[in-house]
């Protein structure tokens, strides 16, 4: 180890890991909980902050942030007496924070699959959550098997900056607003209750309830053209009731039905890149270089077909042929 990399293992000055550990341990130790004033006297990091002249307001903010951090990592802090006088409110860590569901008894092979599942995020938005989860799973002590899973490195991509704020809003069940640009260029402001994120053919979709339209809707993430804003009523976030499983299933089924109803037919140039892509040597897929399949969204499929240039001709629907063409014309005009 060189001196340089050795120093890299030192936590940064701003690293809060030691403070969070002190806070967690103090709360676990004082089983009946501690008040904020007690915590400020107990935790060395807080005491130090007070001694170095941190004003109460900043100290309070630090404490709020620390609580948020603990909750985000699944350490459940609650107050058994929320109605008490402010100075008497106690903070307690829930008993079951460290109790795993009894049926979690992992085999070596399963740990391996979980590792692969966590690595799926290694270049995408949930990287940090996935890798923290993996640390905990490994800490259960199972040894990884010498593996036959080597040779696979599946990865999810999230190119859309709205992905992370939407996962947070889904988890906290908070309403959000954003500007959405439809494929025809029309922009409108949406207010939604975000339910879940789906990926269909490589495109991320937000499944949600559109509050103004009063119905479930799917939005393509890459068409969100503004910040995702948490909706507030005064100081409070606007929360919503979780949708029933039935409603979620119906909404997904409607999307699938929509897709089933949209078919395109293409003619593909023999032995071109598109011919390879659609596996047209496998006769079950084609007749005379023609192929048909379902699609979700006209503009999105047009985008993919533009990848093949003149190797592909759209036979039907006419709107798709026109969309592909209009895109190319725009490109020519933009690069004149």
């Amino acid at each position: 180890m060189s001196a340089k990399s050795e120093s890299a293992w030192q936590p940064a000055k701003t690293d809060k890991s030691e403070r969070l550990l002190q806070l967690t341990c103090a709360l676990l130790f004082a089983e009946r909980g501690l008040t904020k004033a007690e915590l400020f006297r107990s935790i060395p990091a807080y005491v130090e902050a007070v001694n170095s002249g941190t004003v109460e307001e900043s100290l309070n903010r630090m404490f709020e942030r620390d609580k948020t951090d603990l909750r985000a990592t699944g350490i459940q802090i609650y107050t058994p007496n929320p109605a008490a006088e402010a100075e008497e409110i106690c903070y307690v860590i829930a008993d079951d924070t460290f109790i795993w569901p009894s049926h979690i008894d992992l085999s070596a092979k399963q740990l391996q699959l979980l590792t692969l599942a966590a690595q799926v995020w290694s270049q995408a938005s949930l990287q940090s959550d996935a890798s923290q989860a993996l640390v905990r799973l490994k800490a259960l002590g199972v040894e990884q098997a010498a593996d036959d899973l080597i040779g696979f490195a599946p990865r999810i991509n999230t190119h859309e900056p709205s992905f992370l704020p939407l996962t947070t809003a889904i988890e906290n069940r908070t309403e959000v607003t954003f500007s959405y640009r439809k494929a025809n260029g029309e922009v409108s402001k949406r207010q939604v209750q975000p339910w879940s994120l789906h990926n269909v053919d490589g495109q991320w979709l937000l499944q949600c309830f559109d509050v103004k339209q009063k119905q479930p809707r799917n939005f393509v993430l890459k068409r969100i053209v503004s910040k995702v804003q948490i909706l507030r009523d005064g100081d409070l976030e606007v929360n919503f009731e979780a949708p029933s499983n039935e409603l979620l299933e119906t909404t997904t089924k409607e999307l699938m039905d929509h897709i089933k109803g949209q078919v395109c037919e293409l003619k593909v140039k023999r032995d071109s890149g598109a011919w390879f892509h659609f596996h047209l040597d496998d006769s079950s897929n084609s007749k005379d270089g023609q192929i048909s399949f379902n699609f979700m969204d006209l503009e999105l499929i047009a985008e993919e077909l533009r990848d093949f240039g003149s190797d592909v001709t759209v036979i039907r629907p006419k709107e798709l042929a026109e969309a592909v063409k209009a895109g190319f014309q725009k490109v020519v005009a933009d690069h004149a």
Partner: protein
Amino acid sequence: MPKPNNFNGEDRYNFMLALVGFLQNRGPVSVSDAAAHFELDPAYLRKVVTSINEARAEVRGFEQWFFMIDVEELEENGMLSLIDNLVIDDVPKLSNRQASAIAAGLNYLATIPAFKSDPDLIELQNILAANTIRGINPLVELRPGSAEAGAELVRKAILAETQISCEYINQKDERSVRTLEPLRLDPRADGWYLRAYCPIHKEVRNFKLDRMRRIEVLDVQRSNEARSVSEIEDAIYIAAATDTKVTVEVEPEAYRLISEFKTISEPANVENGRIRAEIKVGHLPNIGRLVARYGGAAKVISPEQAKVHVKNYALAALGEPVHSKVENED
């Protein structure tokens, strides 16, 4: 996974809790074994041990030191031995977010033919489904060409450490029959990539599975050169000195074009969603396909040569004559 020196405060805190739970359950273990188990550097582990040993608070007038990992044992024998632990009996269970991330990862694995009906995978999906919010859902594949036909054959070759032959059509639309030594399959949203040692170029290269056909597993073992490949980059784009820098302007609909090259943050509003960025292209004529697919949401700013390639690509696709001469096209 983040390298340990990229661990931020939350990651480090998470690891400290996990390590105490691990040592509590497992009993004494050598630093090197523990480091290997968590895939961390032993030096990182030692620093974390110091932080754990320093954890204390003055609870109701009494100073409590919460843990003691035997420092002498560590210094002399390289052993981690937790001899005092006042508070943590076990590893903290997964948070909702953590469980959701893993569940989504499993769901993604389940879309890959090799895992689809794996009983272990199904069991894990069930365990996690019972404990997660329904955040991120299974991926649905619809198009032909997305679930890759040759994947199983290639995977067999990887596991058996043998070579394959196939016909490959490159991005210049040139077809050739190649011998490749497959090392790893990388299913991605935009298709499957094969990382293979190429005996002609004597290096690991990327091949898109949907550009291969007539794949045959050969009865030839992997060469020593291919065996000596130790690590394969995660990124699909690998920089080369011969790359051309191209400045592009993209709307949110085309952020994918630049996301490998620039960290993208949320646009404040519709007006400033357009971003200018520099991307690198190995074979410059490819810029035509890369930009034209977005049908106007992406645009080349410079160099001039790249603009010409884009325009020509679109003109050719429209079946219109391509006028301007492009120099240096290989």
